[in-house]
């Protein structure tokens, strides 16, 4: 499997995963509105407000990732920003790991997730098409 195909596969898989997470978060918000419901996400009304917002943003991000999987050369900036955000998410988990309160709640999970996100970011850094690879020769004269 060549580098570009692997990149498309990773971006497409991430897109599907984020789409499913996003939809689940939006559904969790609506389910929480039922009287006497047990929340799927362990948080209150304000927390669910942000869960729904995050779900919508994830769905949008999934759309971008799908576009990058379809045409990686034309969607380099989505790859770049995905790498930046993966690193940021890993950094947030590292901070959560250092702070004792999160450790009491999540145990080793933040550190494990941070490692996974950083490895994924590292893979995307090397799989992403370069600028020179993205130049598509134009056929014909004026556009």
């Amino acid at each position: 499997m060549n580098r570009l195909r692997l990149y498309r596969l990773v971006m497409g898989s991430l897109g599907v995963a984020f789409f499913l997470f996003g939809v689940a978060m939006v559904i969790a918000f609506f389910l929480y509105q039922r009287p006497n419901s047990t929340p799927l996400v362990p948080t209150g009304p304000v927390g669910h407000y942000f869960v729904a917002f995050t779900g919508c943003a994830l769905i949008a991000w999934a759309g971008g990732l799908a576009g990058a999987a379809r045409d990686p050369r034309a969607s380099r900036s989505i790859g770049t920003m995905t790498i930046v955000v993966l690193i940021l998410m890993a950094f947030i988990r590292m901070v959560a790991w250092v702070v004792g309160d999160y450790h009491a709640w999540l145990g080793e999970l933040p550190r494990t997730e941070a490692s996974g996100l950083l490895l994924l970011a590292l893979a995307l850094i090397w799989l992403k098409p370069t600028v020179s690879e993205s130049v598509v020769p134009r056929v014909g004269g004026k556009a």
Partner: protein
Amino acid sequence: MILRGLASLLVAGLLVLNFVLPSSPIGVRGRDAQVRADIASALAVGEPLPPLELFDLDGRRHTREDLLGHRVLITFERSVDW
């Protein structure tokens, strides 16, 4: 290529840091620390209740003087408004 190298170095550095960083013991900071401090300064059995002013779910005000002479059970619950 230079940018890729720099980005890879950054990620590799964070990966190493991720395994080197120790997690703070529970209660060193934040909410748990506050709870432990509160428990340490809590009333002992037999000590008089300090002056207090509490509001119930209906907004009624209660003071220590209102409770004197009665057997009282006070429960505290975390509000769902967060």
